């Protein structure tokens, strides 16, 4: 029987990083992926003369060589940074909520951001400065916490990172209120919320502030050849390190021994692989729902307790005029009905009511990403319920077109750009598309929601006790770092290194 020290199931962002970590730790490693490409959502596809980015809006926490973010540091350690050509995103975002007369374009750089906010909202300086001070303390506290692998000393924490501990249990809205931030500034600084997909009453301040701070402090980056370049660079690295990679190969079963620990993996063609360590880059729901025969009750309960985060929808447009000609001014737009994220979240439950979009014109960051005289855009939204489950196959294409049409109308209305008559290529991905390619339940793209009780901090603090089955760890959006590119990479880093530790301890 073929034997590996470790098997990684799923070559998404988390799985790829985990595989590199396992190989760097000296483990003989196999990574299997059911699709014929690596990356999961981190991929690209071609239509006519366009190559579309499948999902990445901007890579958070990467930074430049002289202002390296944590993701760059990780990529350096993995040995992949130099295999990829990077570009910087020009500005943070433009947020528009027409019904509330909000239209603000925010820059990268903490000072620049505070100054611009003061220009939009006179009197906001003090509270916004405090926001970034808190956020920076959170960043340092998190760095300390990961340096001691989550085994933090509480006295040391309180002494050195007191504000982090004091604000650590509150939601975004609770903290911003305490900071007495003027409402309009709250609205502007809330723009990123849909990147994390929980409303700001639910989402922990630590999680949100940490993300905003990393964006604004370090800027954002993008690989020149779409995220497919990152994914292929990682596969290249895995092969350099002697790892085996199988595409078009689905792991259908995880085998367990008498004590319930991992003993092997069965592939879709019946091949049995002996291994005592598996890192799953997929939902625990999928693993426990169909890949394992005996699942401990505590694990079943814990899995059932969790809530699926947003189900994804993206429209891709290749336009036959340049961004200038069409009046598309910015790289990154957030278009909302209201900046009240609780109300907005509610409206995002149904196909009929959801009109939110996070939209990118890639040419504004990478002018030659499409042929001269053209540009390309992608428009993303999230559904906060399973309304797409109500769409029958025969109504599917019409429903897709209905949503795509609404997205175009909103973009034109809110920004004044004219795009409808210049569509040369259109492609739409729905929850069904994400379910198909990545196997996620209900087409979820954001893992488990960052609810008030299931946010970043308690997940990190409970990493050890969440690991209930010997030899089984998780990476990707459903795991301890939550969803998003950088989070998924970090989860792969953590689970990969922990598995190396398990292997050294347990064999």
């Amino acid at each position, binding site marked *: 029987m073929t034997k590996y020290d470790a098997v990684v199931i799923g070559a998404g962002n988390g799985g790829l990083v985990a595989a590199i970590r396992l190989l760097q730790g000296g483990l003989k490693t196999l990574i299997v992926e059911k699709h014929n490409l690596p990356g999961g959502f981190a991929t690209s596809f071609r239509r006519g003369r366009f190559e579309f980015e499948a999902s990445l809006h901007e890579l958070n926490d990467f930074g430049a060589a002289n202002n390296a973010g944590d993701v760059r540091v990780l990529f350096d350690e993995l040995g992949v940074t130099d295999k990829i050509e990077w570009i910087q995103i020009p500005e943070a975002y433009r947020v528009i909520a027409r019904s509330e007369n909000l239209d603000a374009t925010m820059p990268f750089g903490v000072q620049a951001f505070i100054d611009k906010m003061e220009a939009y909202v006179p009197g906001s300086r003090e509270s916004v400065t405090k926001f970034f001070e808190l956020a920076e303390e959170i960043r340092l506290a998190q760095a300390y916490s990961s340096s001691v692998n989550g085994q933090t000393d509480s006295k040391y924490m309180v002494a050195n990172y007191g504000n982090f501990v004091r604000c650590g*249990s509150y939601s975004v809205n609770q903290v911003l209120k*305490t900071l007495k931030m003027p409402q309009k500034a709250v609205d502007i600084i809330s723009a990123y919320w849909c990147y994390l997909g929980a409303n700001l009453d639910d989402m922990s301040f630590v999680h949100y502030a940490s993300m905003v701070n990393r964006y604004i402090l370090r800027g954002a980056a993008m690989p020149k050849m779409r995220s497919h370049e990152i994914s292929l660079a990682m596969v290249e690295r895995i092969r350099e390190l002697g790892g085996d990679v199988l595409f*078009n190969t689905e792991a259908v079963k995880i085998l367990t021994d008498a004590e319930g620990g991992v003993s092997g993996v069965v592939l879709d063609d019946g091949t049995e692989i002996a291994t005592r360590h598996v890192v799953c880059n997929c939902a625990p729901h999928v693993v*426990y729902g169909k890949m394992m025969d005996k699942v401990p009750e*505590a694990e*079943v*309960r814990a899995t*059932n307790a969790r809530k699926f985060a947003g189900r994804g929808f993206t429209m891709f447009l290749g336009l036959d005029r340049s961004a200038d000609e069409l009046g598309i001014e910015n790289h990154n737009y957030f278009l909302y009905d209201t900046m009240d994220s609780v109300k907005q979240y509610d409206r995002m439950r149904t196909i009929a009511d959801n009109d939110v979009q996070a939209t990118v014109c890639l040419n504004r960051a990478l002018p030659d990403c499409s042929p001269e005289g053209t540009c390309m855009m992608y428009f993303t939204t999230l559904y906060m319920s399973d309304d797409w489950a109500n769409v029958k196959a025969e109504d599917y294409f019409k429903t897709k077109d209905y949503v795509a049409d609404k997205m175009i109308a909103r973009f034109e209305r809110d920004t004044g750009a004219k795009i409808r008559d210049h569509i040369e290529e259109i492609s739409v991905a729905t929850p069904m598309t994400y*379910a198909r390619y990545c196997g996620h339940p209900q087409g979820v793209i954001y893992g488990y929601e960052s609810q008030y009780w*299931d946010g970043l901090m308690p997940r990190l603090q409970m990493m050890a006790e969440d690991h209930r089955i010997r030899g089984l760890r998780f990476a990707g959006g459903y795991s301890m770092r939550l969803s998003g590119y950088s989070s998924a990479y970090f989860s792969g880093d953590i689970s990969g290194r922990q598995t190396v530790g398990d292997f050294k301890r347990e064999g």
Partner: protein
Amino acid sequence: MPFTFKKQIFGFMDLIRFTKMVPKRREKLAEGSAEKIPATYRVNETAKILHPGYQSAKLVKITQNTADTKTYEFETDKPFYFRAGQYMTLGTNVNGSEASRPYAVSSAPGAALGKRVAFTVKKCGFFSGYLFDNAKEGDIFTVGDPSGEFCYEPLKDAKHVVAVAGGSGITPFYSMAQAIADGTMDFKLTIFYGAKTEEDLIFKKELDALGSDKIRLVYVLSDEKKAGYESGFIGADLISKYVSGDFTVMMCGPQAMYAFLDKELKKFDLPPRRIKKEANTVGVRDVKEEHYKIKVKIGFESYTVDADSRETVLVALERAGLKVPAKCRAGGCGFCHAKLVSGSFSIPGADKRRLADSKFGYFHPCCSYPDSDMEIIANKA
């Protein structure tokens, strides 16, 4: 001066609250239901109808349409759905090796929900020859996922589509016409259907029966003059005779027809977004016969196969009886994605790979010809 964050009147309350997060989550996780975790979900089930993957299909009916065309109707394992204009691969084992070809579906999308699908095939090569000579009712085949973008896009295309079909290129339009007639789709379709003689027109009777204010047929015979038919080739003048205003051109037929139309359509000065072509062929190349070896790793196994400079890498692998993925066989879908370890190849037609694929040495065996001995890594089918 660093500030001190304080939410509650007594700051220590904030600290206590922090320490309660873990117990709270622990409690919530333990409160979850003990019920079995579902093996599947509704969205995932609908996704399986939209993308059934490979499935087996029983040949239930063969109809001879013209001297060199037959329609093969199948009953599939599972209900599925597609967009009129898409193709599927039809495959079976021919003399010990797996062979498959992409064919545009000629039946209506609605029929697929009832597990029925039809392909209309012109006898012109190895696989179609096999079908004509050997396939019989009751035989089991494998059909692939509905694929391709040769479809009407309501948000992009004009409300009026000018379809130009040559020979068996009528099949995707026949599917569209049925979809318009049964209300699945809504647009105006004028089909210019070119064939050599009246005898060569496939689905003439069926198409005529579908004619309406939305579906209009113009038959164009190149080798025959007959009342009620246009004659010659389908060009700008003929199109202008029947169509005006804003329209999208969709064409499906032989390369020669595309070459002619490309020139003719210049007269309309249409932007590229108004012209769609079903890209159903691989670039061919005219080179000296050379023989090479291809070493290929598939899964955990390695094989060495013979290759010929005049045949694609994919064909070399298939000839050797290896099961490797293929769908469009025209370089565009990326389904055959493989990695080059050493050696060289060329792509005579358009290079439709992703940028990073070229950078990291990935290629599409279906449209790439060997220029030397090669070592590659391919995926299993």
